[in-house]
């Protein structure tokens, strides 16, 4: 199962997705880290710039990554009750 690395930016709290060489606000930019995830966390953690680093399970779908847990789908899109704030990572109704 593909795994993505995610966390929250220190300065703003923004949800971020690891996009291969840098972070992105958008799930659609994320790159699967799979077995390299733990090593990536070990490298990034000491930099102390991204909080709550965690690997999450996703499914690859024709429309892009779909996090398996509701929690991570909500993180990727924004509050399901405020579609006006939704990020274009997933349709709100995909939550």
């Amino acid at each position: 199962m593909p795994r993505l690395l995610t966390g929250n930016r220190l300065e703003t709290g923004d949800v971020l997705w690891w996009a291969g060489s840098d972070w992105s606000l958008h799930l659609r930019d994320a790159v699967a880290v799979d077995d390299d995830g733990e090593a990536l966390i070990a490298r990034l953690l000491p930099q102390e710039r991204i909080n709550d680093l965690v690997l999450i399970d996703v499914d690859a779908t024709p429309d892009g990554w779909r996090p398996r847990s509701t929690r991570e789908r909500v993180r990727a899109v924004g509050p399901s009750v405020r579609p006006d704030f939704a990020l274009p990572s997933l349709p709100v109704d995909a939550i």
Partner: protein
Amino acid sequence: MYRYDEYDQAIVDARVAEFRDQVERRLKNEISEEAFKPLRLMNGLYLQLHAYMLRVAIPYGTVDSRQMRMLAHIARRYDRGYGHFTTRQNIQYNWMKLEEMPDLLADLASVEMHAFQTSGNCIRNISSDQFAAAAADEIADPRPYAELLRQWSTLHPEFSFLPRKFKIAVTGSTIDRAAIKLHDIGLELVQNDAGEIGLKVLVGGGMGRTPMLGHVIREWLPVADYLSYMEAILRVYNRHGRRDNIYKARIKILVNDLGAAEFARQVEEEWVLVKPLGLDPPPSELARIAAHFAPPVLDANAPVEIDQSNPDFANWVTVNTHPHRAPGYAIVTISLKAPGEIPGDASADQMDIIADLAQRYAGDEIRVTHAQNLVLPHVRRADLFDLWQVLVSAGLATANLDRASDIISCPGLDYCTLANARSIPIAQKLAVKLAPQEADLGELKIKVSGCINGCGHHHAGHIGILGVDRKGEENYQLLLGGSGAEDATLAKILGPGFDENGIVTAVEKVIDRYKTLRADPAERFLDTYRRVGAEPFKEAVYG
């Protein structure tokens, strides 16, 4: 309204400066996140699912128009134009940036507000009756006592690292609008035959993972001595509370384990040691504080009768106003629960409008209720129509106080890292479905939590809903029969849980069954449930 003295202001200003320094050091990586996290939490700043969340303290739920305008300014300047009023009479902002926190807290301090002790294992914001000093059923204004507790508990060195968080509520009425039986300490002002005011003391109530009702450990406590008695309670808890297990660390577990009588005995024993230390202030100090809470000068000749020929206005007056102690006045509740909207959310523009209304019509006071609504406590009945018209234009005139669409909901999984399931969408769907029949249903309190911590007070709901995680999917348990009022009871789970749509249907089935079971149209759902028990409702829901 209490106004800060030089000590209050100095404490808040010093904390702003201290946190500014801490934030700067964190942003420069001079301190680690591990070291910084408890510092930001001590200033009410959480990291939630999408951003930082700031919880601002509103002592006993009271603000004036100047403070409400500042809350609107913060929503506009630092957030996305809205705030969320909470079940602890506070306000939360969901889209905070760490780098902007020092300036925000300085803005708050400029109107005598702050965000500390809204997180952590300390004494949290003291809550109280939103109708204080206005209700006809009140014995005495509880807010001076709550304010003294605020001063005593602010940065109290001995009680800043308790076994667990600690919540105190104070009421001055036998009609319990502050849920005192569901607090770590509940205080009720009572009057003896000689007309003296004292306090009834309850300890060990709470919701969350292990809900319990508080026990009375003292029927009468002289008000002159109550601070030292609080100190004694906290000392016994601080000494014996279960620090080894976070799930057993609240005082309710200690009281339950010891038994209320033994806990009370230990408090009395401790009090003998504490009382001579001189902690209790002289009566003049309580009188000084109480003077800040003098109600506005009320017009004894204000007319009682008003034109209610507009049926929408008449309905709003019936549902959302409450008798004031002065006959020509009313207590107005502004519902933040328009069906389909997010319970407790208010836009910056709405906050400004409410501030204007408070200044113009309500003695410059606004109260936040634990049911996530706002109250204007002193409104001339003759001004109600003008006020209502402004509320209508602002989308704030929903007439549903204590009815089926006046639903308490925590932020749930839409915002909160602790949540297992979304709670707001459930509240929205139920409100839309039930609003058309709520006038027929009468008082019906529905409360939704997105996790076992119970910020949505589901155990105190006539109908409670608890969101849980079931194999990665949101699932909702249905509870019936709770109350947070003077007839407090804990709601009980009816049976197996439901998915998002199933829980809405289940609630509808419960209500349909209630309509066939009620003894007469005036019998509340809660009273019907207490009379007939759970079985008829189980049958209706599960067949």
